[in-house]
């Protein structure tokens, strides 16, 4: 069974349209990030999170009414099921928390406390810093590795592809005002590591083709390389996305945002490795006026 193996697609001809699509998606995300920002979870913003399960079904309004008695009507209330809620408030001390919980018990119904998390502003700031350091560390590490194994040009392309994938994920999270938690940052970091996977496979193929097919114009080599790895790219994207979707649908609420971020990142990563990364190499060559005959592309090997 070979669904895509033999067909040939031209990824170079329509690359401008693809650039525009990506640019628009990223731009919308950036506008959202700039104007409405991120919905930072308590990990970064500080605050208190309470996850409770009532004995009977309870409405969000009822929960909010009780909270407003404690001047917490601004809290975020998420109902996971008709009797399970996640409530996010400003940082409150244990006494106030107890007061709220007993008010729930008195006014609504008995309940079980599933999870209580309180993060102070100091820790939040700390975690924010750590998250940024971790992202920088991963970015720099990967770029160094790619430079070492391939060449500098490839690592610039990789950075662009990585930024593309991360910006799409973060942009969508900002747009949908999905909570940014430590897990979401972990997902973004995983994407940073994984999304290059497909790009590397295609670039590797390109490097090989450049070596053996020196007569072909560079456009053809790129197209050839993408097409040759296409069924592999799509199949591995599928096999990675399937477990992530299983995680999203069956893994429970704590992991659902993590899984969502991974899913978005993997879709963006697959798309960018096919449609963005390799065509960008062509742009690079055009900008730096490297001759279109493939022989020049490897640089080191090309200078005979």
């Amino acid at each position, binding site marked *: 069974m070979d669904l895509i193996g033999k067909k040939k697609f031209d990824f170079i001809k329509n690359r401008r349209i693809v650039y525009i699509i990506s640019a628009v998606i990223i731009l919308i995300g950036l506008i959202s990030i700039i104007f409405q920002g991120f919905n930072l979870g308590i990990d970064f913003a500080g605050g208190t999170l309470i996850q409770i399960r009532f004995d009977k079904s309870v409405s969000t309004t009822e929960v909010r009414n009780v909270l407003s008695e404690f001047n917490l009507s601004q809290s975020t209330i998420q109902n996971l099921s008709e009797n399970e809620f996640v409530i996010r408030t400003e940082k409150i001390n*244990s006494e106030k928390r107890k007061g709220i919980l007993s008010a729930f018990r008195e006014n609504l119904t008995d309940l079980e406390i599933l999870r209580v998390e309180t993060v102070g502003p100091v*820790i939040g700031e700390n975690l924010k810093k750590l998250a940024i350091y971790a992202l920088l560390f991963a970015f720099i590490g990967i770029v160094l590795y790619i430079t070492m194994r391939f060449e500098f040009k490839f690592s610039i392309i990789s950075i662009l592809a990585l930024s593309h994938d991360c910006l799409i994920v973060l942009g969508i999270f900002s747009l949908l005002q999905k909570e940014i938690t*430590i897990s979401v940052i972990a997902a973004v970091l995983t994407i*940073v590591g994984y999304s290059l996977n497909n790009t590397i496979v295609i670039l590797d193929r390109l490097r090989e083709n450049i070596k053996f097919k020196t007569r072909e114009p560079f456009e053809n080599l790129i197209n050839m390389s993408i097409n040759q790895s296409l069924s592999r790219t799509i199949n591995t994207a599928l096999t*990675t996305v399937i477990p992530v979707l299983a995680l999203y649908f069956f*893994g429970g609420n704590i992991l659902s945002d993590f899984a969502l971020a991974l899913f978005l990142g993997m879709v963006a990563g697959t798309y960018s490795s096919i449609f963005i990364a390799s065509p960008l190499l062509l742009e690079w060559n055009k900008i730096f006026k490297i001759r279109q005959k493939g022989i020049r592309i490897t640089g080191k090997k090309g200078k005979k």
Partner: protein
Amino acid sequence: MNWTKTLRLASVFVVIFIAIILSFPLNEKINLGLDLQGGSHVILECVDTPNAPVDNDAVNRVLEIIRNRIDQLGVSEPVIQRQGTNRILVQLPGVEDPEAAVELIGKTALLEFKSEEGETQLTGAHLINAKSSFDQFSRSIVLIEFDKIGAKEFGEATKKSVGKVLAITLDGKEISAPVVQEPILDGKAQITGKFTVDSAKHLALLLRSGALPVKVEILENRSIGPTLGRDSISKGIKAGIVGLILILLFMLIYYKGFGLIADFALVVCMVLIVGALAGLKATLTLPGIAGMILTIGMAVDANILIFERIKEELRLEKTFRASIDAGFNKAFRTIFDANVTTLIAALALFYFGSGPIKGFAVTLSVGILASMFTAIVVTKIVLEVVATKFSSRALL
């Protein structure tokens, strides 16, 4: 089959065997993180107050007192660690009521006896014992006992307050306000308040362990009840099984005989991951389970890469055996490069992440290494053995 092949095949089985031995019995060998077994992760900070500035000695005493309190709570395998100059990390796995436990360890527990005028007569500093009990109306009470100096001070205080109220306060809050009938000179007293059995027990525990010398604030507290922990495990397992079955089916349907080999490699990979986690005594967290599920997908990645390469070589009319060799050789470097970048990201996660995220970084790294091993070693040897019995057509 020649000797080297037999040897390689045998070593694969030895590795699998070791992994199984390491991970058996599963529930004893795999440490569950706080988020899976329930419990609390707390970061406390000693803060300066005008009366009680924080110094090294004070932090050490706080550490000691907190350790004492936790011991008395009967938590098994708690973690109590100093972090930096004035922070303390406390982890209490498996506590039934994490909320109450956290409250207990962070409480200053300064016991004071105050005259009607509000002057502090004495504190709980000279207590030698405190225990919960019941009075004749079977109400919960706390019995306290002072040492010699304390007994003398207490005698003075009660003498001055005969016929008056001598209020008992904890951290500035009144617990009870009894009227002193006669001076108490033996240093023994009972505190009657609106106690429940539990709150009397807790107060006694706090008094026994002593008051914290400085103010302690809770910077971070993550408490997971045991129900949610169990929930998370079953949901994680469910997601994992669904993901695994779908991938096994996908590979079988799309790659047929090759797929069956990849499925075998995937199962081996999972066994190796569990074995490695058990062998490393790693802690499995909820994000860790997510990491394992993610690895299910990544593990077949290398196999797909190899099979696609072999297919290409076969299209060039090479023999099955030669195609396998060429496919592996060409795919190896790609597999290696592609996985190293994920490992770099996992390393970043490990260094900068907190508890649960570290768990994710560990399973992800272990998963990547195991998947590389299975693809490059297990898949290859199985393919080679199969190639001696079947034609490539039978597998495609």
